[in-house]
């Protein structure tokens, strides 16, 4: 019997027939769905390149068995922008040179989106660096990444504040 998996990926409900239970969420996204923005780095939960949001929480897709997340809502880097308008975290990474080669960038961006949603780092650069320590950057663009997360946090919290006061 081939199990069928129900996932909502970037807002689109999908039914996926899975003939091999070994598929991780990372392999499923890249090989079956064709969303190759999520990157495979170490494939062992050590580098963070595969970070996605599962039900709103950042996790390593390489260590998530796809079958275990039947029914979940997944957000990948492809699901962040609204049309041609970049998500504030994406825009801030460009503005602050938060990358060189770009391979770790989708994972960095998804991790930053998760970090800002957690709301515990605020505008403290040390807490941001600690909160982003699950994402390695071999080009060592860390200084720009921290600046980008700071700016995106400011942007997103002031936007929330305006909405709340409106």
């Amino acid at each position, binding site marked *: 019997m081939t199990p069928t998996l129900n996932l909502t990926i970037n807002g689109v409900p999908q039914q996926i027939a899975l003939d*091999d239970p070994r598929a991780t969420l990372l392999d499923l996204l890249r090989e079956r769905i064709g969303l190759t923005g999520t990157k495979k780095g170490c494939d062992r939960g050590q580098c963070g390149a595969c970070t996605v949001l599962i039900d709103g929480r*950042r*996790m390593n897709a390489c260590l998530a068995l796809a079958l275990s997340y039947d029914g979940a809502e997944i957000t990948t880097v492809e699901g962040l922008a609204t049309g041609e308008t970049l998500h504030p975290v994406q825009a801030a990474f460009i503005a602050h040179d938060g990358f060189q080669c770009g391979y770790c960038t989708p994972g960095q961006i998804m991790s930053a989106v998760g970090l800002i949603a957690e709301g515990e780092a605020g505008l403290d650069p040390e807490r941001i660096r600690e909160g982003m320590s699950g994402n390695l950057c071999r080009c060592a663009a860390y200084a720009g990444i921290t600046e980008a997360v700071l700016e995106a946090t400011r942007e997103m919290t002031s936007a929330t504040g305006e909405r709340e006061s409106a």
Partner: protein
Amino acid sequence: MNRFEYTRAETLGAAVGAEGAFLAGGTNLLDLMKIGVAAPDRLVDISHLPLDRIEESAGGLRIGAMVRNADIARDPQVLARYPALAEALLSGASAQLRNAATTGGNVMQATRCSYFQDPLSPCNRREPGSGCGALGGVTRTHAVLGWTEGCIAVHPSDMCVALAAYDAVVEITGPGGLREVAMEEFHPLPDAEGAGAPSLSPGEIITHIRLPDPGPLARHGRYVKLRERTSFAFAIVSAAAALAIEDGVITEARLALGGVAARPWRCRKAEEALKGALATAETFARASELATDGARPSGDNAAKIVLAQRIAARALERAAAGTPDRLPALPASVFAGDDNG
């Protein structure tokens, strides 16, 4: 990775007694399967069992086995009453891993001994009778307490060290019913042949971790962890300390070491020496020497004994200064400064 049969257990009854390997957060088991150290024929997915709550229990807390590590660390009751537990959790792994890893899985995680993780190396823990590749090898992360020539691996958990200090109890359900084991006794110490008897029998499952009322220990709890980089690394040595202090005198003390043995190491002699003594640097230095009573290097790692003493003293000093209102930006870091931060 080998092929396996996958089933999802919707109820505890369906999980207990099931044959196969239990899958929860997957952060350790899937990794072990990818590197060929684990190859179960059947995975029983227990991640959806209704064991995902933190409840009040007899003045303390009862943490479900499927609560994610990140959710324990940000629980207001845990932060207020068991701060060393929150700090230990936040000093471990990465935010992504803490969002996935479960309480039960953290307890059950395998050693990070590189010889255990390498299927080509002999390892009594992975393959009983094959020998120990770590003996005479690279041993800076290996045990200095409670080891034998059968196995010198350490348990990698930070969470369990704090749990042992707080007298936590592991609740287990099996085909034969319920049983409980103290956290500090849960992980077996090795015997002459290898890793010792497994903590759980086939079909048994951890359902909860129970924490007793910490009383006045709540206000003086800290975790300190020495590692090769400041974040996202396992401990070389670590220490959880909790104190009750009245008018400068220690009325109750808890101290446990991590990274030194196959289990979190409760330092009973040090605790006895602390009780009734003045909360001073001299007291903590004396207690920290007792903390490593019986320690001996298992290889080229004698430095860990001295480091463990220093980290224990640091944890006691920070605990005595009082739990900070907010955990430091770098939880458990030796670089966090001693100004209560």
